[in-house]
């Protein structure tokens, strides 16, 4: 593994992020939309770790650690919301969720 340009990792990160964004746009299953958001967070993490390695600084890895914490919290609350929506609407199709009333 001698000297891969950091550009390659950043490009891969951009591709993964775009796939995640596309998933949010074209899928209507709320769970798959959540997974796409996780994919986007993961792409950002990959770029951070790549820059951390290129600059020989650990700060990027610390950021990734915090992002993982935030992602875990977000998933717990988000899935709770999805379960709550499913209880009232009997569906997790985001097209069906067009009123805020419970």
């Amino acid at each position, binding site marked *: *593994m001698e*000297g*891969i*340009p*950091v*550009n*390659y*990792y*950043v490009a*891969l990160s*951009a*591709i*993964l992020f*775009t*796939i*995640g*964004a*596309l998933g949010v*746009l*074209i899928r*209507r*299953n709320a*769970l*798959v939309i959540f*997974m*796409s958001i*996780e*994919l986007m967070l*993961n792409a950002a*993490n*990959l770029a951070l*770790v*790549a820059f*951390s*390695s*290129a*600059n*020989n600084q*650990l700060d990027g*890895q*610390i950021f*990734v*650690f*915090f992002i*993982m*914490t*935030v*992602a*875990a*919290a977000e*998933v*717990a*609350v988000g*899935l*709770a919301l999805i*379960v*709550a929506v*499913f209880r009232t609407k009997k*569906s997790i*199709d985001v097209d069906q969720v067009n009123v805020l009333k419970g």
Partner: protein
Amino acid sequence: MTVFIILALVAIATALGMLLSRNAVYSALFLVLNFATVAVFYLLLGAPFIAITQVTVYAGAIMVLFLFVIMLLGTEELPESDKLPWQRPVAIGLAVVLMVEGIYLMVFQKAPGLINAAPTEDFGSPQAIGDMLFTDYLLPFEATSILLLVAMVGAIVLTVKKKKGEQN
């Protein structure tokens, strides 16, 4: 270099598999594979602690939570509702624009440097990460503990069933 290309192809293929599977369980399993691939990237980048955290927290905890919810709700596949007539091609076109822009801005403008091929032995080790967490990043670290507590309470509040006849 070969390792990078193969892993990158696996990562992109699993991400696309996640996007295109009709069944939400397959999507979740593709995403687990994607997270595992990214964990191998972290190992290549000299971040062993982050790699293990990725496997345990993301591929382990978060995705298991996803699978639990998918199977609890029994919504592996949504019934076909009316098609989105024009939104889908527009979304794909805009995504391509986003990708080209992102790659252009980050690759051709300012992303100099090479991946450190031979990191020192303690670079990215749990000890080095812990040192930074408890010195430079102590305040954010403590803030995340409160964040996790709030998320836990929030998840319970949102999912708890109301008793019959209870007000509100």
